[in-house]
């Protein structure tokens, strides 16, 4: 077997989704027999910091780089240099504009569109919605906003009464929801960008009647969809395990089995608990033992090869 060294670059630390992504990368690298070494650069930083990490990975002589880009356009200088040196570049989760890079991306615009559309249908095409976004000025948030706006345009009866940025922080989101509830201004549904189960808690704790809530497939929220009385909601999948798929793709490319298209979009799926079959899907997907911030979709069928145990162990090649 070949002996590949793969470099990983990620710019958000301390968030369940990203942690799962890293663990999926490790687990996939472990089961890929051609990968002998995985170098992970994983910290909180901006695009300039990611450039630094990418350059360091190039210096370290990796064969492929799998990155979750902080921005589609900002990293081109390093990515082009990498590809010029024959390094395979795979962007996961979001795309990059550098020519020649493989993109294995969660379709963020679709993610928002799917959930919003379901929500607007759920409230009957007419009503007041709370729109809880992520971090202002960050690419992923902008993509999702585009999807949300697209759905909004299709439902003229829907009005956004509150729009707020949670900063993708649990405490912020919960506190903001308390504030909205306190104003007494009624609303009919909540769309969240993944800060979801604390929103349900806010309703329950303040004794307010629940309204339909859209969240992500985080373990905590998915469990709430099965448990909480009177909660109608939907989880849109946004698998962190796409990172594992990225490793698999990189190895394929290194082994000369490059796919036809450079861009592979992993389209999200929506699980709702309003219908019988939806509930069945959710029951099958949920995993109460998982860290509540982790997405329950721990594998990407057709791409990843590791087992549940392996991703939870979170060990890569060379880790003891």
């Amino acid at each position: 077997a070949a002996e590949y060294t793969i470099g990983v670059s990620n710019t958000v630390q301390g968030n369940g989704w990203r942690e799962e992504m890293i663990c999926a990368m490790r687990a996939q690298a472990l089961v890929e027999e051609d990968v002998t070494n995985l170098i992970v650069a994983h910290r909180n930083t901006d695009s300039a910091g990611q450039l630094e990490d990418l350059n360091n990975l190039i210096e370290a002589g990796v064969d492929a780089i799998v990155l979750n880009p902080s921005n589609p356009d900002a990293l081109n200088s390093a990515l082009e240099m990498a590809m010029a040196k024959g390094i395979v570049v795979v962007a996961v989760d979001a795309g990059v504009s550098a020519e020649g890079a493989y993109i294995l991306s969660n379709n963020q615009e679709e993610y928002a569109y799917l959930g919003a559309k379901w929500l607007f249908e759920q409230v009957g095409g007419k009503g007041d919605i709370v729109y809880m976004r992520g971090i202002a000025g960050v690419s992923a948030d902008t993509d999702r906003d585009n999807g949300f706006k697209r759905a909004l345009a299709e439902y003229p009866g829907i009005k956004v009464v509150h729009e707020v940025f949670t900063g993708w922080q649990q405490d912020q989101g919960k506190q903001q929801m308390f504030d909205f509830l306190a104003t007494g201004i009624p609303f009919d549904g909540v769309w969240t960008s993944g800060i979801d189960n604390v929103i349900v808690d806010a309703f329950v704790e303040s004794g307010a009647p629940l309204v339909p809530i859209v969240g992500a497939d985080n373990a905590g929220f998915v469990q709430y969809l099965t448990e909480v009385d009177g909660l109608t909601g939907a989880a849109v999948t946004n698998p962190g395990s796409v990172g594992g798929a990225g490793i698999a793709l990189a190895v394929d490319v290194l082994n000369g089995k490059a796919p036809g298209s450079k861009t592979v979009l992993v389209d999200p799926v929506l699980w709702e608990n309003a219908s019988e079959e939806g509930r069945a899907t959710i029951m099958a997907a949920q995993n109460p033992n998982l860290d509540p911030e982790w997405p329950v979709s721990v594998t990407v069928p057709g791409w990843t090869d590791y087992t549940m145990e392996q991703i939870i162990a979170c060990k890569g090649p060379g880790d003891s």
Partner: protein
Amino acid sequence: MSGIIRKNAWVAGLLALLVVLLVATRMIQPGFGVSGLESIARAALPFVFATTGMAVVVIVGGIDLSVASMMAVCAVTAAVLMERMAGVPAILIVLALGLAMGVINGGLIVATRVPDIVVTLAMLFVWEGVALLILESPGGSTADWLQKSIRGSFLIPGLPNALVIATVCIAVVWLPIRRARLGIAIYATGSDERAAFRSGVAVGRTRIAAYGICGLFSAFGGLSLAALTGIGEPVPGPYLLASVAAVVLGGVVLGGGRGGLLGPIIAVFILRIVRTILTLLAVDPNVTTIIEGTIMVGVVMLGTAATMRGART
């Protein structure tokens, strides 16, 4: 006399540490050479500017928590302007903007008599908001030549352009000031404000000038961000804490009056190279965080023990 020796000993120690780290990098990765140096210099660029700006205000006895936010404002402004106009006037506008933001910070501190840390904490939010108002999400673009200028090492063979540019910018701004009365006044104000006032220093104006310089360096920092990424990002990067850490590591005393710019700049390179080494060694990223924290604390501890600074409290 001993003060000068103490100061220089600190900088010399840092320099020695930097050399040791460079040698270590070379040993870990025999291929590490000009291109590696070049990429470190480039990565260090925004940190260098943030740190020099911070160092100047710390020397005057203040602190500026809004550096990273001001850098974001400058970066997005540069990216927006360069879509519309030529690069050079855009750069001049950005530099003027940085200076203006710094002067506003300083002016507010002097006018309201609210402590530096509070004013700049508030301005951290203000400038961050301004950046978002200028550009809602990452975008814009920067002139091609600007992006190219900080790459490679064609200006002086072997010396990374980024390093040359940083040196020139800092030298052009700081050296004349340091030599002039304003430089002395900045140190005097930071060292003992009352004595400075009694010695005829216009304390308020000196302070405003120092914050203005910090704003100017933030503008350089913002420009370097725009040059690195080719776009403008309205979200402040991790430059605040990093610059405070580098300033203190570099031997500038929080509280003012003591230290120079060379030490903090060397400290920036030390912190950057440590990260490179950890990546080259493929250290677990979580352990990397632990090691970075330990090094930061450890170096200051060792330095304190070795030179017995702070003996005069």
